[in-house]
């Protein structure tokens, strides 16, 4: 009985997926736009009632114009690409180091006892305060920003990895022992698969943190980048451009987050 009903429910799920989008799906999409529309409307109303506010708030129309023009502004994209390049590099370096450190610390309680106090002390430092130091050592180019980004990304992965390793069920370890798993086999067949979901959610967050580190560092000082653009525009009181740049940032990092979510769903289909 159970087998039959289970099979049927799987089939019907597959069927509905094939049938394409139903009305509920469309209502869902529309519902997602409602908060955005409400926000822009309130923004617009505020300016209608008190036009002097547009000095700080700009106007939806001006921001839209900036966004439109920015698409073909090569100077703007040079800065975007400088920021993104640094973001990806710090994402990559920070993740690799964080995962490696997180796993090796979890494998040895002695290494953990030695390193953990320093790790939590370092992690509690406001990293933006380190930016001037990194920039002084590494210069106004990519290296300085990357260092700030890495200092954030590293800890995200380090702590996620450790939480993941801790989530190994004692029953699974016992099974591994009764099956005489070697150290290597236990690592690859138990520890890594268990940790993988936490690593992945760490990676998803890490991109946002990499961007945070890089842009903060650019705001302190840099030769190019979106952080510098924001500083420049706000010094000139070009609020439309400030908001426009922020929107681009949101779109890019939100997009990466969304894509990572899709990939995660694929990879973690067993969940």
């Amino acid at each position, binding site marked *: 009985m159970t087998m039959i009903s289970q099979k049927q429910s799987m089939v019907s799920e597959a069927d509905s997926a094939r049938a394409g989008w139903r009305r509920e799906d469309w209502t869902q999409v529309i519902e997602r736009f409602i908060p955005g529309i409400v926000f822009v409307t309130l923004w617009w109303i505020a300016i209608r009632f008190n036009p002097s506010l547009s000095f700080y708030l700009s106007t939806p129309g001006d921001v839209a114009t900036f966004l439109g023009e920015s698409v073909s502004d090569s100077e703007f994209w040079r800065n975007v690409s400088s920021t993104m390049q640094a973001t990806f590099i710090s994402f990559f370096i920070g993740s690799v180091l964080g995962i490696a450190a997180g796993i090796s610390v979890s494998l040895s309680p002695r290494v953990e006892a030695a390193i953990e106090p320093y790790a939590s002390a370092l992690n509690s430092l406001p990293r933006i305060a380190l930016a001037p130091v990194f920039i002084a050592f590494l210069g106004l180019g990519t290296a300085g920003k990357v260092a700030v980004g890495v200092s954030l990304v590293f800890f995200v992965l380090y702590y996620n990895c450790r939480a993941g390793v801790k989530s190994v069920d004692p029953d699974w370890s*016992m099974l591994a022992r009764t099956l005489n798993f070697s150290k290597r086999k236990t690592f690859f067949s138990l520890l890594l698969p268990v940790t993988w979901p936490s690593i992945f959610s760490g990676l998803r967050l890490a991109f946002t943190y990499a961007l945070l580190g890089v842009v903060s560092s650019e705001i302190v000082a840099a030769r190019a980048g979106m952080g510098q653009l924001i500083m420049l525009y706000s010094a000139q009181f070009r609020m439309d451009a400030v908001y426009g740049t922020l929107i681009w940032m949101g779109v890019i990092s939100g997009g990466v987050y969304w894509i990572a979510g899709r990939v995660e769903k694929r990879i973690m289909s067993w969940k």
Partner: protein
Amino acid sequence: MRAVEKEVSPDTEKACSVVLEDVSVSFSGNPGTKVLDNISLQIREGEFVALVGKSGCGKTTILNLLAGLIEPKQGNIRIHGKEAAEGREHIGYMFARDCLFPWRRAQKNVEMPLEAKGVPAEERRARARRELKRVGLGNFADYYPKSLSHGMRQRVAIARTWVLDPDILLMDEPFAALDAQTRLTLERDFLKQWAERASTVIFVTHDLPEAIALADRVIVLGKGKIIYDDKMPFGWPRDPETVLADPRFGKVFAEIRDLLG
């Protein structure tokens, strides 16, 4: 209560798959109390032994000893006439929880013990597939545990235990978490497989009727000692349900229940 002869002659030891001699166990957290107190026990090749007793009386501890998960404080364990560490080669251990790895499909879960033994991939697949068929899950090899029912998951765990062709099977309340109907089905299937394979089974359960219905011999543990050890009068082949209706069942049941208090 009939006591079982304690002396182990070299001849009988050969025919024994498991021998415990004056084994005591205590844990480091509480070294004063002996969880197992000077226990001696012989289990013959192919015997189906049920181990019952109150919660915390040391049933799981005995299985863990045999599986090598813990070491005895005193005494000696021999498996197939050899030192425990050597004789332990082909032991299967099954828990109350299925312990399936959720990121592996049913098939891959069953293959796992073979992977650890370095069996080539081709043979692994074939053997795992065969075991899944035997437990009636031939069509579910590619399912992840999350899309299997409770009973189906437990059957995958049984397949995973059988796949090594264990000559000694340790089972710790394997059917405890199942509903009565599923449980009876699995018990029947299990008896059938056991009859085909002739493994020694040590079966821990809280459920006295289950112990009496399934086993050749029932051992009761109390306060770290064996307080009952006797053969069951029902022959083979048998069905767990008909044993419950057997007039002799009531007598055995009453006798053991009084011991359990």
